[in-house]
């Protein structure tokens, strides 16, 4: 579903990604872990071209996203994204946040968009918050709305950029719960995270990134119990 070949990303003189290769299969859950500054988030943001790619190829759902002929807006409708800072639209109510893109991009009628939005809010456990503004919700609730907003486009895959890093510890669980549910339903997911428990439990595969490359790529079982790379071992010793 996603193929990445020799992906490089440079910010000025600073090369953040130094040749990434990876594949994500349909219905697979891939967690990306690694120290901060290792390029995890940049890598994720290259997958839907929020970050311009310096060189290499990213093929999403059969389309090379760097190809000029590729309609990036169309690709993005198939790739949902959840941000560390939620990025909900503060001037719109919860239900309006969820309804906006399906109406404007998928051309759903307001009634269809509302039905879909209400069903998704129900799913993330926030049906009763539909008419409130994001600022009236807790961080965990806001992030669940953000997940519902992304799902409202009925994407084929979801990208999560440290979705729980901005949350108070007691609010992390409710967000991870929603993500687990999604994984169980067979959503293709790439999750950049510091939640090792989540990666261990939910991921089919874990990528350990350091200094702009993928140092190790393995099943969670091997990564967490018997990592092949010394760097992985070091990192996990520090965080676990």
């Amino acid at each position, binding site marked *: 579903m996603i193929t990445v070949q020799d992906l490089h990303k440079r910010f000025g003189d600073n090369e953040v990604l130094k040749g990434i290769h990876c594949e994500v299969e349909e219905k697979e859950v891939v967690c990306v872990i690694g120290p901060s500054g290792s390029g995890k988030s940049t890598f994720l943001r290259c997958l839907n071209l*929020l970050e311009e790619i310096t060189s290499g190829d990213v093929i999403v759902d059969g389309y090379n996203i760097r190809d000029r002929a590729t309609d990036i807006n169309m690709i993005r409708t198939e790739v949902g994204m959840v*941000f560390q800072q939620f990025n909900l639209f*503060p*001037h719109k109510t919860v239900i309006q946040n969820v309804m906006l893109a399906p109406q404007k991009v998928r051309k759903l009628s307001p009634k269809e968009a509302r039905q879909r939005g209400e069903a998704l809010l129900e799913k993330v456990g926030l049906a009763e918050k539909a008419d409130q503004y994001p600022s009236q919700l807790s961080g965990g609730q806001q992030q669940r709305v953000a997940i519902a907003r992304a799902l409202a*486009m009925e994407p084929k895959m979801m990208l999560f950029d440290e979705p729980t890093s901005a949350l108070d510890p007691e609010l992390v669980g409710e967000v991870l719960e929603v993500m687990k549910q999604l994984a169980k339903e067979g959503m293709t997911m790439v999750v950049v995270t510091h939640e090792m428990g989540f990666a261990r439990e939910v991921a089919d595969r874990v990528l350990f990134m350091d200094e702009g490359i993928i140092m190790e790529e393995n099943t969670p079982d091997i990564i967490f119990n018997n990592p092949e790379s010394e760097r992985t071992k070091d990192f996990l010793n520090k965080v676990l």
Partner: protein
Amino acid sequence: MFDFTQVIDFLPQLGKGLYYTLLISIIGLLIGFALGAIFGLGRISKNKFFFIIASIYVEVIRGTPVLVQAIWIFFALPIITQYNMDSITAGVVVIAINSGAYIAEIVRGSVDSIDKGQMEAGRSLGLNKHQTMRYIIWPQAFKRMIPPLGNQFIISIKDTSLLSVILVPELMFQGRYIASNHFNAVEIYTTVALFYLVINFSLSLLLRYIERRLKY
């Protein structure tokens, strides 16, 4: 000593001045807002040409006094273009281009101040750049524009008094005409000042009300 009852006799004439002050302010600021929106976007545009044009406009207008602009447009421009503008049109043009430059900076600042995560969230949902601007960035930026816009509106309304030098029959022009003919400077200029105060204070209240309504 001072006889403020006589002001009543001059109210029709002052009223006429008030009419032109409001007319020029409203039309001038409407056009100024449109100019400000266009050139404000120019100032954040990636298009070099558009950016440079917008920057020149803003710097030239901000760098010269409104009084000089008024006199230049009314007395100098017709010599260059061989086209005579009546003073009221010239007044509207002065207020429009002058406020437009300041409003452009207000627009630029407000749009710039919206967190870039908002644009990313919009784009990641498949909205194109134009749609994201229209549905997500603008509504938020507009709210932030209201206080500085209100300020600019008030400044521009007061600036219309300078248009008396290009013979626009606005409030200050009428006041000067009456005072110099009837030697009642205290009564007339006090009344004129009060008129401006009432307009601008009403505007302040209106803006405060709008701002409250837009709370989210």
